[in-house]
């Protein structure tokens, strides 16, 4: 999956998982903040998304990972995070 396709899929997951009825996936800016400003998601949304990303992509974060805020900053940062985690998993399986 290319980064662009991954970003599109992440946006679809955000809208589906959080039931954002008035938001079109394509309208979510890739580099706009997801929490607080921008899309205005909160910490419970983050939990729901973490579960959804784990189901879809097989990646998960640890609760005390100091980089969590950075991973979940925007769709763009999530693309980078998921790509890296999937590459790590592929390397350890090989």
């Amino acid at each position, binding site marked *: 999956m290319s980064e662009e396709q991954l970003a599109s899929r992440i946006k679809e997951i955000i809208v589906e998982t959080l039931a954002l009825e008035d938001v079109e996936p394509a309208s979510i800016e890739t580099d706009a903040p997801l929490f607080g400003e921008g899309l205005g998601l*909160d910490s419970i949304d983050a*939990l729901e998304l973490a579960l959804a990303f784990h189901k879809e992509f097989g990646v998960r974060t640890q609760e005390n990972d100091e980089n969590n805020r950075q991973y979940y900053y925007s769709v763009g940062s999530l693309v980078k995070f998921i790509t890296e985690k999937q590459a790590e998993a592929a390397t350890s399986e090989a």
Partner: protein
Amino acid sequence: MVATSSNRSSPLDPALRKVRLGWVLVTVGIYTVLAPFGYAGLWLLCLLWRRDPPRRARRLQTITSRAYRLMHGWLTLTRVLSFRWRDVAAQLPAGPCIVIANHPTLVDVTAVTAALGGAISIVKPGLYRRAMIRPLLVGLGHVEGPGADPIRAGRVVDDIVDRLSWGVPVVIFPEGTRSPPGGLAPFGRVAFEAARRAGVPLVSLGIRCEPLYLSKEVAPYRPPHPMPELTVEVISVDHPDKSSESRALRDQAAQRYSVWL
């Protein structure tokens, strides 16, 4: 029970302001002298009942709430800040519950704790992890907040649900920060998610301070005139269940507070 305050001015106002400021300074002085002893005493008490955290929390919360009642009684007596709380605890549902409140002043935590006879709350991680304070917060049963890590909310919700069985109300300020004057900051969903998951009543408390004092905008050394009156009242009691949606609960509560304000 809603307070009203007079806006009539009088020639004595400047003098009364100075008297009030004098009592503020006396209060700060007394606190500075006595606080170390109070903290030391609470520290020692935290060593007791270590094998039974719920029991320890109940006892320490009782002691703390009485200390806060004494503090607010003193502030009322010296006419720095009037506060009356008698009816609030009686309006809480029987059994465990989550209490939410708006957050206009610095003394909301002490006021709500005094009114309820004890309150477990969420504490910002930066404060919770300070070496000298952490044992007190742990002993009192307080929960470490999620901070900036969005993933930690899960553990916070789990801790809150766990505390509900301890016999002390869990109080959460959904705004996560002080309210802007006369308004509300956006509500987070931790309180509503915890109430939904545990299936416990959700009590909405309204806190008002008129005229505003001890806020981000009004410093302790600028007591307003006339004497500020701090009131706490029960706005509503909701009964969410596991099928409730925390987003809907949050929006409903925020709307209710907007109308109340």
